[in-house]
């Protein structure tokens, strides 16, 4: 889908959030000199095309007690990824789940799943649950914990990478 300049203005205007008012799309329309119906129609079209994934609340998982996370990585047989990838992604404690290329010999893993929990021990329990789920599709695995944030900028429009 190609989005036009007006679509972009809508995304920019709502990047910080939807106005918290009874008629939020009418307010966005007033900001941009569009009708409420046009804002809704454009946002619905972008959602249908996947540019907008959903209009939802983003919990601050740290504030809500999910203070531990680890990047679990798995070497999954290529002919099994299509089956097990969606199962891992659907787990309620996995926030990102991607297939990425291996880089042998430095890096034998192709499935990445970010695990969140209230503690390091809980993250390890959840990692064990993924291992069970993968069964013999898994040929090796590891988990990487972050020890320091080296840079964090406002990549507001992006999720993952």
């Amino acid at each position, binding site marked *: 889908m190609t989005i036009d300049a007006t679509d972009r203005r809508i995304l920019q205007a709502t990047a910080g959030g939807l106005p918290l008012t009874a008629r939020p799309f009418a307010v966005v329309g007033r900001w941009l000199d569009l009708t409420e119906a046009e804002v809704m129609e454009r946002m619905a079209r972008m*959602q249908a095309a996947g540019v907008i994934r959903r209009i939802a609340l983003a919990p601050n998982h740290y504030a809500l007690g999910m203070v531990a996370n680890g990047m679990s990585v798995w070497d999954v047989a290529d002919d099994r990824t299509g089956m097990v990838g969606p199962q891992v992604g659907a787990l309620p404690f996995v926030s990102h789940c991607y297939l990425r290329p291996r880089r042998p010999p430095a890096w034998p893993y192709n499935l990445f799943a970010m695990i969140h929990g209230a503690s390091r021990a809980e993250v390890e329990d959840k990692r064990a649950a993924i291992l069970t789920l993968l069964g013999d599709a898994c040929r090796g695995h590891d988990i990487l914990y972050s020890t320091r944030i080296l*840079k964090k900028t406002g990549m507001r429009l992006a999720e993952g990478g």
Partner: protein
Amino acid sequence: MRQILAPDALDAADRTIINRLQDGIAITPAPFAALAAELAMTEDDIIARIARLREIGAITRFGPFIDAAALGGAFCLCAMEVPPDRLEATVTLVNAHPQVAHNYERDHRLNMWFVLACERPADIARTAARIEEETGLTVHLFPKEREFFIGFRVEA
């Protein structure tokens, strides 16, 4: 913001809102009125509570989640094996690139993990090559080959 809320910071209605609204709302003229009927709360109460949840840091935002790649941007996870005695100097060189969106030190031989965010796909390889020249270290690229549907939820 890196602070955990006190257990009594949220009441049952706040928790209901956090749990329900992670799933997303339908695009209708009065979305909070539609939710009010569903959650047996008033429209005004829901709006006020979402605003307060943002103020106290229980949520970061309420709005559209964008697939940045669908907007035409290019993103790539990258990793480097940086000798410990060169870490600080390498951090400076890597972070100086505005395309480096975020960067984490991790406990692995590949100890530096960052995301490149560029306008065009060709800029990813170009930026990675420049970082390799500047640091003399290999930049491993881990582009997304497939993304799986995410069922992630935080139960409040």
